[in-house]
């Protein structure tokens, strides 16, 4: 069945005298689109986004010829940079998946950072309090991080489901509480007695992710990929995935046909919190090796962005997370070699997102020129 007719009509030519032909552009709602075509539109919008970004970088003083070199060659084909990308990508994949889970239930969890902080605190607590034998230490830290991330997500979930409190506000505000509690720990009870900087004592070697090929990035990425597979199973293979699709598409209908809507929302949100908690674990146990005061900055926004660009598809989220991480590393390189401020990297991210977001419009609508006799 074809689309319903003109939703909006924009007049192409100003009022003309006499019976001239006038061209109008009519917008139609499109019902379905073949996926290769969707991919093409997406690719074009990405290209436009990168084009604009490149122009801005050139205007900021990066030689045009160096862009390709910096962005693609240097970032992906230099071993050190590639390691940095993977290093960056692991927690990004995890928060991206976390956002994906919550968004699938139409729950706008903006508390990814708070949940990540609690995950990191949980992992650090096991280390700081010296709980469990060394062989079990790392799994214990992972479990604690998962549990605390999940619990921190429980608050906005219950507030929403029980009292109808807007989760965007509640989850966002809980980030500040988590952030300040983190400061309280690293400036207070958990401060490293060795040098009194605001971070916790260094983790012991068995409390850190194992080093494969000389660094922890491969292990972190492996963990992230295992979690990706689990997330893909959850939304794509299990019955809960079907339920979630119904909750997303039409909650009232879902309820009417017996889908446990509230339970599904709660599970998705808790899962989101748990995944963010794991991201916190990966940062402290993989990258920093201790609890620091600002390790989480920017991950919340990146997570939302990744889920959005990936259309809440866990496999796509992993790919997008890699892309965002590459962008991040490339940006850092630019910062070092061309004195480009880091906010420029954020600007590029924003431009890419806006372009992709706009592409949605062309996937949903069809623009057709209507030539008519004006009279």
């Amino acid at each position: 069945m074809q689309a319903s007719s003109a939703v909006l009509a924009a007049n192409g030519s100003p009022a003309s005298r006499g019976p001239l032909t006038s061209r109008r552009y009519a917008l139609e709602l499109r019902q379905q689109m073949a996926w290769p075509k969707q991919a093409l539109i997406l690719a074009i919008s990405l290209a436009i986004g990168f084009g604009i970004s490149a122009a801005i970088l050139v205007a900021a003083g990066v030689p045009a010829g160096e862009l390709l070199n910096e962005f693609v060659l240097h970032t992906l084909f230099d071993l050190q940079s590639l390691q940095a990308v993977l290093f960056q990508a692991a927690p990004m994949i995890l928060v991206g998946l976390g956002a994906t889970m919550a968004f699938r239930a139409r729950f706008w969890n903006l508390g990814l950072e708070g949940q990540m902080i609690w995950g990191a605190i949980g992992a650090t607590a096991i280390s700081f309090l010296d709980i469990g034998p060394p062989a079990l230490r790392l799994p214990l830290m992972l479990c604690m991080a998962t549990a605390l991330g999940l619990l921190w997500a429980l608050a906005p979930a219950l507030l929403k489901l029980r009292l109808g409190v807007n989760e965007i506000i509640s989850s966002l505000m809980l980030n500040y509480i988590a952030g300040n509690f983190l400061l309280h720990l690293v400036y207070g009870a958990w401060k490293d007695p060795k040098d009194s900087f605001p971070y916790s004592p260094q983790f012991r070697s068995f409390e850190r992710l194992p080093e494969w090929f000389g660094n922890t990035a491969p292990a972190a990425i492996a963990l992230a990929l295992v979690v990706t597979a689990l997330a893909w199973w959850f939304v794509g293979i299990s019955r809960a995935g079907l339920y979630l699709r119904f909750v997303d598409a039409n909650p009232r209908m879902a309820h009417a046909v017996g889908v446990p809507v509230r339970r599904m929302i709660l599970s998705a949100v808790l899962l989101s919190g748990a995944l963010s908690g794991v991201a916190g674990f990966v940062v402290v146990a993989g990258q920093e090796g201790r609890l620091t005061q600002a390790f989480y900055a920017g991950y919340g926004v990146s997570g939302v962005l990744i889920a959005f660009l990936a259309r809440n598809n866990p496999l796509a989220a992993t790919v997008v997370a890699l892309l965002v991480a590459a962008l991040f590393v490339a940006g850092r390189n630019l910062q070092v070699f061309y004195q480009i401020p880091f906010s420029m990297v954020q600007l590029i991210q924003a431009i890419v997102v806006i372009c992709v977001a706009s592409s949605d419009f062309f996937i949903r609508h069809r623009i057709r020129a209507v030539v008519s006799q004006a009279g």
Partner: protein
Amino acid sequence: MATALQLTGIAKSFDGFKALSDAHFHARWGEVHALLGENGAGKSSLMNIAAGLYAPEAGQMWVDDNPVQLTGPRDAARHRIGMVHQHFKLVKPFTVAENIMLGNPLALGEGSHRRRLGQLEAQIRAKAQELGFDIDPRQRIEHLSIAEQQRVEILKVLLAGARILILDEPTAVLTDKEAERLLSTVHALAHSGAAVVLVTHKMADVKTYADRVTVMRGGCTVKTVDPKQVAMAELVQLTVGDSIAAPVRGRSPPGEARLRVRGVRTSEAGGRRALAGVDLTLHAGEIYGLAGVGGNGQSELAAALMGLDDQLFEGELVLEGFGDLARTSNAERRALQIAAIPADRYGIALAGALSVAENFGVGQVHDGRYGPTWRLNAKRMQLDARSAVAQFDVQGVRSLDQKAALLSGGNAQKLVLAREFGRVPRVVLAHSPSRGLDVRASADVHARLLAARDAGAAVLLISEDLDEVLALTDRVGVMARGRIVAEFEQPADRLSIGQAMVDHD
């Protein structure tokens, strides 16, 4: 008296369904003119044409004896026609004055927004006083009762300059006292020279307040009469049509009582109770028809019985051999073989953005037919969906992965039936299952309901279409003001049912 509004030979169809075929209407200045008819008779469509919302396909409209062709509601306002819809068009967080300003931005003076708003507030106060309304222009709409919101709507169209006032089912949402007050106000308004069109289905209101009444049935005008001159019975007959003997169908005696609905009522908050104590019993092997004019609690009853929203109600729904269903989840209800066909096909019965196969499969996924919780058997779901689509003759399915929203009304409904009747049902709850469907699709739906009955299910058919109820059911209940006011054994007398539907105040 001079003609205020005249419509002749109006025709209008929606998606091939002829809502109006040859409608005539003639209102004079200074009168309250009632437009009477059953649901779907075409009253609202005709008045929406008069208010410029729809363009007619044929026919002519006159205002003050001048032919006019309206281009939209704003154009209608220029011709001094204003309509108050059944569902109010007000912006809830805005104040009364702001809403009225939105309604007629042109009619305002010069100066700053604040000043203009101040002037408008004065105008509103003056007009409200004239009509005897107690309205504070600075109140927010969300703080007003339904009756007060309606007064705001009336003020809105009058301040936009309307002299021809169309009220669509104005008393449907009001308590008796509020209705009385409203009707005497519009009566006074008409007698001061305006023309008021009262779209209604309530005989009593017509008898008391209308100067003339035009009766519509099936998209045509039947007759215009003086309500003071004709008997109530004659008005009822004009509205529901001649009684045709119901076709005699073979029928086995009903079985045991299967579902007992006892004292179901909703809360009193926000006006009158939508359900004021509904009692009915469905027997195995019968179709129980629930007739009534729309808005008398049918939707709320359907929601309560089908467990649509988590709406709170008191009372019991006792399923034979199980117990009270009131606190049972919808998944359990499905497991108990209770089939539900909600009225809102795309809103509650289907998820338009998901595939045909998923919309079908979600019905039986709960009990493990499509694999255990950890693995969905999509293949089996596809196979089942494919055979169900064939068996229920769902057309327009190019692929089972196609979105359900792409199905036309009739095929969407067939998909719902395929899902709900995927297992032999013990109880079938159907709300307006053939609304908006063409004749063939309706007949298919009816055949499915009859087959379910013959297979021993207890079927409840809630419908505003009296013909459908009479043709299909074994017993008829009439719903009015949130309760069942009369029950009839088939063959039932159409006139008595019609009488019970309207004769409740």
